């Protein structure tokens, strides 16, 4: 019941935000909410499933580019080339771009592209029992490789500049404040729905299975489940969420460049979740909002110091609050309990040693 009230309260606050914030601040909030959608996926894959994914930007980017390509084609008009292609001397629309003129195809690809990549990668990697730090490094390398690929294909992807100048988003005029408010509401709704779906997943038997795999993957094999399949599902789900977030990010921010989805961007997505608390969905969402808000504030005031603050925050959370802000209360409770009940003698340990 308390959860429901909190959920309703936050929903009302978010929906009322346009009354309080200037259009500029509202845009920033909309951008943070996109990151919060990614954070939900990370909370599922990392918090529940123990998969430290440092390459979430890849899926964010795949969704974002699928949407960006469609918007560029709409803007250029039928038969015309997007602006950056003419600048790079491309004369005919590349084959890869053609189907993205269709809005339905583009929307489907926003989810299908990242999910497919995650499914393939997950099955390959988890079948081979790659996990922990090895998986983290692998996912980060994927983000680095993706950026190199994007930058190298100037004529196809816009290179370092990425995709820019979007005017229309499914009939909404992106230069009109009222239309931008509609876009903001859409993002709030998507975030709310994503939260409800991930919460349902986390509470289901599947969610328990995921936690069980995080805490004892080898034991779960002997319960008759294939951990590789279970993990791949969560990983692909988080990739799908990141793709949707990326697709919403494009019209909000008005551009998508490799810098938005590279190694650093992927790490930022993760740090936000770590600070908020990866075991709690609300914590992950709150962490993403707080972290990116702090980034904006710091970058406005002291642009040089932000990187240090970010690093210090991450280290501090990992050292002193591994459960994040959302876990602070529980951590305090454990501390108090441990104080009250001095370390009990552990007869079982002795017995085990003797056996």
């Amino acid at each position, binding site marked *: 019941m308390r959860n429901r009230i909190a959920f309703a309260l936050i929903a009302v606050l978010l929906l009322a935000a346009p009354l309080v914030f200037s259009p500029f601040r509202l845009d920033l909030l909309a951008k943070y909410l996109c990151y919060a959608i990614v954070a939900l996926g990370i909370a599922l894959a990392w918090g529940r499933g123990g998969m430290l994914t440092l390459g979430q930007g890849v899926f964010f980017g795949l969704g974002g580019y699928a949407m960006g390509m469609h918007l560029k084609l709409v803007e250029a008009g039928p038969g015309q080339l997007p602006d950056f292609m003419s600048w790079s001397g491309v004369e005919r629309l590349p084959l890869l771009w053609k189907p993205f003129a269709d809005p339905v195809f583009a929307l489907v690809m926003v989810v299908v592209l990242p999910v497919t990549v995650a499914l393939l990668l997950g099955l390959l990697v988890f079948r081979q029992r790659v996990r922990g730090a090895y998986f983290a490094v692998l996912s980060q390398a994927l983000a680095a490789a993706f950026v190199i690929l994007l930058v190298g294909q100037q004529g196809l992807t816009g290179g370092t500049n990425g995709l820019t100048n979007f005017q229309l988003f499914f009939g909404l005029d992106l230069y009109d404040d009222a239309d931008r408010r509609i876009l903001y509401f859409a993002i709030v709704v998507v975030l709310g729905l994503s939260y409800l779906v991930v919460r349902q997943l986390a509470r289901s*038997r599947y969610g*328990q299975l995921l936690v069980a795999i995080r805490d004892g993957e080898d*034991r779960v*094999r*002997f319960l008759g*489940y294939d951990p590789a399949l279970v993990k791949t599902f969560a990983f692909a789900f988080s990739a799908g969420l990141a793709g949707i977030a990326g697709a919403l990010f494009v019209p909000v921010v008005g551009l998508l460049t490799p810098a938005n989805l590279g190694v650093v961007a992927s790490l930022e997505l993760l740090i936000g979740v770590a600070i908020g608390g990866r075991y709690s969905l609300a914590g992950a969402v709150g962490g993403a909002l707080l972290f990116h808000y702090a980034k904006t504030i710091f970058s406005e005031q002291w642009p040089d110091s932000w990187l240090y603050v970010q690093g210090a925050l991450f280290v501090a959370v990992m050292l002193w609050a591994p459960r994040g802000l959302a876990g602070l209360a529980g951590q305090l409770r454990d501390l108090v309990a441990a104080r009250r009940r001095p370390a009990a003698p552990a007869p079982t340990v002795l017995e085990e040693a*003797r056996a």
Partner: protein
Amino acid sequence: MSKLLQVRGLNVVFSGFHAITDLDFALDAGELRFLIGPNGAGKTTLIDVITGLTRPASGSVSFAGQELVGRREYQVVRAGVGRTFQTSVVFEELSVVDNLDLAAGFRRRLPALLRRRHGVSDDVASALDTIGLGALADRPAGVLSHGQRQWLEIGMLVVQRPRLLLLDEPVAGMSRTERERTGELLQSVARDHTVLVVEHDMDFLRRFASTVTVLHEGRLLCEGTVAEVQADPRVQEVYLGRSRDELDKEVA
């Protein structure tokens, strides 16, 4: 009676070390068998091979007519073979009843998996009853004592509805009363399952075992009742060549 489990010509080699050599071993359906032997005899290795954790160099393991060698661990479980480990692993964050529910679940289809657990299924309820942890059903498994964890593991095994249970040292590290309780649990489980128990504890063996298989240095040494096996001079010799009294002390 037909053989439920038939191991033939099994060889397991770990980088030059022969853990199991030319082992033939069989279990009848409905049997409660104890497997003993000094350290390094290959007891746990045999269980590891049956359950797909270790690949043998050669040999076959046939279970109810199906070949198990080459299958992945979860496929062996699905074929009807369950096991426990020397160090019990239960999922500490999940409640006792959720641990059991999870163990009972691999036959569930995706839609059931994606829903929350509502109530307690009959299998889980009866397993809770059998292992005597009903009062702790909703507590996280992390609070259980060592003995209770082992019982929970046995319960998690039973709810999988396997035809063959492999228990690796279920009473190691237990107090006397816990051993007694585990022995009774074992007997009640053995009433409708085939069970293979690896155990060191001689008192426990005398009290609860009927047929015993002795392994030594990866080979089958002898098989028989507890009395027969204990009287066998070869068995006395492999237990460091000591007399029976010392032997009891050594392994207890």
